């Protein structure tokens, strides 16, 4: 994974709450077996609406999404993060994320930064006053800066460290392989086993 420190890109105001992962990427796109190439799928139903924010030329090349509360609820599909990433998004800011979405983002290097509802409103206002304006995401200092306005976002310390260092989770865990082997030796016999299959 690439290291993430700071990033600047066009801010996109998504003024909706409860954006569930079925809206971020409808199930029909989940049939693909690749991990890339989902840019066409992002918000595909909403993109049929000419009024939808990503159809506005000012936001078409957006890369930082500023969304309402409860972003990424519903299905666990990591495809939602892949679709955002493939479209070009590097960060999503919201006052509240669904847990699984937040976890998935961290695995793929997409920043899911939590900001207050008040700051969400301020950012929306600043963006709408200047459509196409750039925002800078600074992961070192946990800030998002748009012109004169700087807001702090929170992201858990461990995820931040991993993203700053560009570390792979599985590689990190395998450093503890001997502990896993020890744990396995202690497991009680009644625990479930799928093999050999019983009928």
């Amino acid at each position, binding site marked *: 994974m690439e290291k993430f420190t700071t990033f600047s890109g066009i801010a996109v105001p998504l003024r909706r709450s409860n954006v569930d992962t079925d809206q971020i990427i409808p199930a029909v796109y989940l*049939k693909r077996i690749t991990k890339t190439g989902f840019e066409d799928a992002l918000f595909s139903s909403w993109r049929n609406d000419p009024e939808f924010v990503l159809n506005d030329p000012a936001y078409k090349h957006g890369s930082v999404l500023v969304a309402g509360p409860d972003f990424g609820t519903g299905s*666990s599909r990591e495809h939602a993060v892949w679709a955002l990433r493939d479209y070009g998004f590097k960060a999503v800011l919201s006052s509240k994320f669904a847990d699984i979405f937040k976890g998935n983002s961290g695995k*793929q290097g997409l920043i899911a930064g939590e900001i207050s509802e008040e700051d969400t409103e301020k950012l929306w206002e600043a963006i709408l006053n200047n459509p196409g304006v750039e925002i800078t995401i600074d992961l070192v200092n946990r800030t998002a800066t748009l012109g004169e306005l700087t807001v702090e976002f929170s992201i858990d310390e461990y995820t931040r460290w991993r993203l700053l260092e560009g570390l792979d989770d599985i590689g990190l865990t395998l450093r503890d392989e001997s502990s896993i082997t020890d744990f396995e030796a202690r497991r009680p016999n009644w625990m479930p086993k799928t093999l050999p299959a019983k009928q």
Partner: protein
Amino acid sequence: MTKTNLTLAEKVWNDHVVVKGENGAPDLLFIDLHLLHEVTSPQAFDGLRLAGRPVRRPDLTIATEDHNTPTLDIDKPIADPTSRTQIEALRHNAKEFGIRIHSLGDIEQGIVHVVGPQLGLTMPGITVVCGDSHTSTHGAFGALALGIGTSEVEHVLATQTLPLKPFKTMAINVEGKLRAGVTSKDIILAVIAKIGTGGGQGYVLEYRGSAIRDLSMEARMTICNMSIEAGARAGMVAPDQTTYDYLKGRVHAPEGQDWDEAVKYWDSLATDEDAVFDAEVFLDANTLDPFVTWGTNPGQGVSLNDVVPSPDSFADPNEKAAAVRALEYMDLVAGTKMKDIKVDTVFLGSCTNSRIEDLRSAAAILNGKTKADNIRMLVVPGSARVRLQAESEGLDKIFKDFGAEWRFAGCSMCLGMNPDQLAPGERAASTSNRNFEGRQGKGARTHLVSPLVAAATAIRGTLSAPADLEDN
């Protein structure tokens, strides 16, 4: 320092810590059971292949096909080429990595969350994961069951562990006795309406109280299934005699001395009397009505005896805006009686409500009746075994005589990944778990309901409770 006053979730957590996280790092937890389906696993297997990593514990892993599978003509090749490719990828991956798989046509095939408990693999006190948010279902046994993303699927395949940050705990206390015609589905819809779709965020929920103790295992699974719809990471019910009676004798359940040891351990899991939850919610079972949704998220629900709410009744501006959007999408007018809403399709199925008790309870209402002219009804058992069981009890005949379609097992109309979909603008009463825009097909409108409401609705053609049938 060891805490002695612990909740159920904390006990299961503590007994699975492989490495305790320090300086803000998450704990590394061992995973006892890993369930796979075709949608969220192909990219995980690709990752293993690229890194040259094997599956660490094929003996703790099991796969089934459910999301893409058709529920008609299952003996023919899958017509949709992309669905077929995804199913074939799972079969290929299972073979290459030595994983047990139950494919379409196999007697153990079915929705992953129906299959695990049915085989006796889901047990109290274990950790269960699946690349599927409704993994919370398995918490009904007192397991810590988490839905995960594809990167985490790969992580578990490679290491049989997951780094996890501790959760907060929330008690959902449901006291009293449910009235006739009110089910566990109504409890969970009422809970979600009460705490909201983000209310459980960061929490593991524990469902407690006399009303929960009175529920069967299958009814508890319905409740835990929809914990994710309240935003929670997991939902749990403490194991008790009901749990043990359900589990005992299932093919993969412990036997003999192992069983006795297991029960001894399981009995120790209940939340200690002096344990403190981070949050508590109370719900009165005595006064609960059948619950249905009117909007486009599962928190937008009301009593079936109520009316479509006005957006102005929501103080929160986000909720108000969401209500305006939802009413437009659902083509509903505030103030309309829920019972006046006419539906086109009734779907009885999904990992929420496709088990044998769900089918029995609906069949008992439909028996000897005929469906409303405007209604199409699909009955989709959760697994091949549930289908066989239902047929051995003659339930299939009741459904068919009523005018419903009797299908093969799968996720079916719960989500738009297989041929079972609603047409744009079509309205469904659905026993599934999500009423999101487009969930059951592009432009489709969903009202989430219990199996009893689904059955009564199929008879009357408008959203109805079994009690409404007695008025006729």
